[in-house]
């Protein structure tokens, strides 16, 4: 489903990602964890070329793009194979909740308005926000906006969904509602998900695989059990346990 080979991302002198190699199979939920500023978000953004990688090959859903030779058209195709949920929701401010969800269906999939609306209503029901269909983003809470953001990512109808710290801008009370929606999504759909998160408890519950990124390298990879309990890497064990300990629920 996803294959990343020798991905490198350099920003001027600064090397953000050094040599990333990952394979993710269809339907797998992968949590990307690690300290802030180690390139987790950058890595995710390289996958849909919101950040242009310097080197390496990205294969998603059978379509391969080489960073060095990527054309505009390649990038366009690659982007249609992924959907993204953003840290700051990034709902289109001039469109209502339902229009946001309909947008990719109308502009990219060229569906009719009626068909798009029908699907959008279903998706809004799924995230429990049908009553907000005509609300503008600024009329909704952060949690609601993010749930609409997730519905919109579903509407892209890609097999891969990238979550870029989906709960980091939410106040603690709203985190749960968003995580619940993501969990439900992971359980119900056979979508491949890459989730950058600091919510260790959530990652443990939802992920099939966890990847620990540090200083632009993959420092460790494994099932949640391997990472949380049997990790031989002292650094990773310290990190996950420290972050988990900071979580009030686990104290």
């Amino acid at each position, binding site marked *: 489903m996803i294959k990343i080979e020798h991905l490198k991302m350099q920003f001027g002198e600064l090397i953000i990602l050094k040599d990333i190699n990952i394979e993710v199979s269809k339907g797998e939920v992968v949590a990307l964890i690690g300290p802030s500023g180690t390139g987790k978000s950058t890595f995710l953004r390289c996958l*849909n070329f*919101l950040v242009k990688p310097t080197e390496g090959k990205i294969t998603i859903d059978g379509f391969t793009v080489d960073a060095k030779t990527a054309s505009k058209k390649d990038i*366009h195709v690659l*982007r*249609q194979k*992924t*959907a*993204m949920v*953003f840290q*700051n929701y*990034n*709902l*289109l*401010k*001039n*469109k209502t909740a339902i229009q946001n969800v309909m*947008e*990719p269906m109308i*502009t*990219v999939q060229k569906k009719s308005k009626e068909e798009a609306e029908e699907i959008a209503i279903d998706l809004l029901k799924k995230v429990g926000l049908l009553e907000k269909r005509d609300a*503008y*983003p*600024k*009329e909704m809470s952060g949690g609601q906006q993010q749930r609409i953001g997730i519905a*919109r990512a579903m509407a*892209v109808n890609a097999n891969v969904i*990238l979550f870029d710290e989906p709960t980091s801008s939410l106040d603690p009370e709203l985190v749960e509602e968003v995580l619940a929606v993501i969990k439900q999504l992971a359980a119900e759909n056979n979508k491949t998900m890459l989730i950058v998160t600091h919510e260790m408890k959530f990652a443990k519950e939802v992920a099939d695989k966890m990847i620990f990124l540090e200083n632009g390298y993959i420092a460790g990879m494994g099932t949640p059990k391997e990472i949380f309990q049997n990790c031989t890497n002292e650094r990773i064990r310290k990190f996950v346990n420290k972050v988990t300990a900071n979580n009030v629920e686990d104290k």
Partner: protein
Amino acid sequence: MNFDFQWFINLFSIVLPALKITIGISLVSLAFTLLLSIIISIVRYYKVWGVYQFFGVYITFFRATPLVAQLFILYFGLPCVVPALKSMTAFQATVIALTLNTASFMAEDLRAALESVDIGQLEACYSMGMAKYQTMIRVVLPQALVVALPSLGNRFIGIIKGSALGFTVGLADIMAKAKIEAALSLRFFEAYLCVTVIYLVIVVFVENIQKLLEKRIQKFC
């Protein structure tokens, strides 16, 4: 004070029929100005090489020189060099001068507004697979127009008042009518007060429309 109130009131019935010229010029110029400004601002936003520099020079020229000079060059100067322009009417010349002049300011207002749209909005569109032009037309431009609305209103008011320069090339707008009556009767104060009142009423009307528009779009910006 020697103010002939009766004459002043009667003057309105002479001047007001020319209002359609003033309003016509203003609306046509506004439409062209908006169109031209949007094109220029998008070119400058994307920094399209060559065209970007060309519009840079255009903006500098039209912002730096007086409207009346531009109008005279266009109406009296250019037809001497380009005979095809001799058929240009005063109406057309005024519209062209007003458009070129105002667009040089409005394009910069709009470019700033385009740049004020959060990068996250663009990222959201691109991540969905939307093309650049779709992102611009459906998301960036609408949001930018909302941001720019107050300054667009200002520019439109500038156009309305700028249309008064049309009389210098022989356009029979309200200003021209008032000037003719003033010259005939030597009642300058009454005549200019009359047009001043008319401009004031038009601008107050425009201001109210602008307020109404701003209120309507408030819910998403």
